[in-house]
C-alpha cells in the first residue's frame, strides 16, 4: 500500500504541491490526471524520493520513504518509469535491464526476472545487444517499463507513457501493463495526459489541479462526471 499524506513540495522558492494526499491499495491501478504543469510528475518524484516534501509524509508498505535517500526507495518495492523514458541510450538493452535490477535483492533474481520480461516483451529479447538509443519509440517505452520491472517492484509508477507514441502502440503497452497488474498482483500508478485513456485503465483516479487534489473517484464514474467531461474531454 502506497500512502501520500498532506504533502507540500517546493522547487526552491516555488511551491508545486499543496496538501496532496492519495493512496494506492494493493493490486490497484490508480490514474493521476491533470493539465500540463498541474504537478503530476512532481507527485511521482515525491513518491520515489527524488523530491523531498516540505510537509507531510509518504509511506510505502508501512515504511516512511520521504526520510531516506532516493536510491534506497527502490528497495521498498517501488519503481518508476520516468517521463520521456530516460533510457541509458549509449548502453545496450541488456545493460539497461541489468541497471534496472541494480539493487542487491534484484541481482539475485536477475535470470528469473529476465526470463519473465522476455515473456512480457518478446521484442526486447531479440534486441538485447543493441544500443537502447537505436530502438524505435515504442520499443524504447517497452524497455523503460522492462527496466523498472527488473527490480521486481510491488508498485510501478508510470509517467506519461503515451508521449510521442502512436495510439495503437500506446493501447498495446497499456494492455500489457494491465496484464502485469493482474498476473503479478502489482500496484500501478499511471500519470497520463490522455484523460480518457487514463480513466479507462484506472480502477480509481485522482484529478490534480494547480498542485492540489481537485477530485477523486472510480475511473468509470469520473469518465461520466460533468467536471471531467467539461475540463478534460472537451464535451458539453
Amino acid at each position, binding site marked *: 500500500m502506497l500512502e501520500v499524506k498532506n504533502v507540500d513540495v517546493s522547487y526552491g522558492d516555488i511551491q508545486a504541491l499543496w496538501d496532496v494526499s492519495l493512496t494506492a491499495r494493493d493490486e490497484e491501478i490508480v490514474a493521476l490526471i491533470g493539465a500540463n504543469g498541474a504537478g503530476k510528475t512532481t507527485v511521482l518524484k515525491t513518491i*520515489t524520493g527524488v523530491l523531498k516534501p516540505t510537509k507531510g509524509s509518504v509511506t510505502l508498505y508501512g515504511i516512511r520513504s520521504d526520510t531516506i535517500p532516493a536510491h534506497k526507495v527502490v528497495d521498498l518495492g517501488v*519503481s518508476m518509469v520516468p517521463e520521456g523514458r530516460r533510457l*541509458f541510450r549509449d548502453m545496450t538493452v541488456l545493460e539497461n535491464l541489468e541497471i534496472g535490477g541494480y539493487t542487491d535483492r534484484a541481482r539475485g533474481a536477475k535470470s528469473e526476472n529476465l526470463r519473465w520480461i522476455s515473456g512480457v516483451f518478446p521484442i526486447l529479447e531479440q534486441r538485447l545487444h543493441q544500443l537502447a538509443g537505436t530502438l524505435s519509440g515504442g520499443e524504447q517505452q517497452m524497455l523503460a517499463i522492462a527496466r523498472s520491472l527488473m527490480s521486481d517492484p510491488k508498485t510501478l509508477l508510470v509517467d506519461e507513457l503515451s508521449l510521442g507514441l502512436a495510439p495503437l502502440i500506446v493501447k498495446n503497452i497499456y494492455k500489457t501493463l494491465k496484464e502485469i497488474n493482474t498476473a503479478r498482483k502489482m500496484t500501478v500508478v499511471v500519470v497520463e495526459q490522455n484523460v480518457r485513456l487514463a480513466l479507462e485503465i484506472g480502477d480509481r483516479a485522482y484529478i490534480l489541479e494547480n498542485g492540489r487534489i481537485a477530485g477523486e473517484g472510480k475511473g468509470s464514474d469520473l469518465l461520466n462526471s460533468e467536471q471531467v467531461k467539461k475540463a478534460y474531454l472537451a464535451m458539453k
Partner: protein
Amino acid sequence: MLHFAQIFSYGLISGALYGLVALGLSLVFGVMNYLIVAHGALIMMAAYITFWAFVYLKIDPFLFIVIVTPAFFVIGWILFKILFQSLMSFSEGEKIKNSLLISFGLLLVFSNMATLFWTADERAISTAYTGKVFDLFGVRLPYIGLGGVALAIIVIIALHLFLTRTYFGKAIRAVSLDHEAATLMGINVNRVCLVAFSLGFALAGIPGILTALHAFNPTVSFELTNKALIVLILAGFGSIKGVLIGGFLLGAIEAVGVYVMGTPYREVFGLILFVLFLMFRPQGLAGKKA
C-alpha cells in the same frame, strides 16, 4: 624511410603516454562534468614520488604502480570530500566552471609546491634498462617506451572491462548518462561519483611513473594538462574508447610535424589539431555528440 619509421614509432610511444595522461581526466569529465585541469599536476606529483622512491628506496618505477595508484585513489577520495563534493548539486554548466576554477587553483598550488620543495631542476630516473633499445628491422624502440605502450593498452583495456563487465562499472556509465534515471534505478549517485573521481586520480599515478622515467620538472604539469585537454577533444569528451586512439593520433602528428618542420614547432601541431577538431568534428573521434 627507415628514418620516418623511427620518427613515427617515437610518435606512437609518446602517444601512449598522452592517452594515459588523458584517461583519468576523461573518466571524471564523462561521469560528472568535472573538468579537473589539475590532472597534469597530479601526474607530476606522482612522478616526483616515483622518483624519490627510486632514489631512496630503490623501488623499480614499474613495480611502484601498485603503491602509487592506490595512494592517489585515496588522495582523490579526500580532495573530493573537501573540495568537490559541494559542487554535486550544481547544474551542468556550473559544475564545469567551478571544478575548472578549483582545479586550476590546485594546479598552481601543486606546481609551486613542487618547485619549492624539490626545485625546478630537471630530473629523471635512470634504471638498468634506461637507454636500452629493442631493434626491430633497424627501428630502435626503447624498452621504456615499449613498456609505456604496453601499460597504456593494458590499463585502457582493464578500464574498459571494468566499465562494461561489472555492475559497478555499468553503474558508473549509467550515472554518466543520466544522474536522475540512475538514482531511480537504486544507484547511489554520490557514491559512484566519489569512486569515479578517485579512480580518475588513481589513473594519474600510472602516467606519473612514465613521466618519471623521462626528464621532468614541475612545469611538466602544465604541459601534461595541455596534452590531456587536446586528447580529450580528439577523443570526444568523456569517451574512454577514443582516448587511446586520440593519444596515438596526437603523438603521431607531433612526431611527423617535428620531422617536417623541426623540434621548435612540436607544441604547435597538437594545438592546430585541437582547433581543427573543434571546427570540423567537435564530437571527437568516437563520434558521441558532446
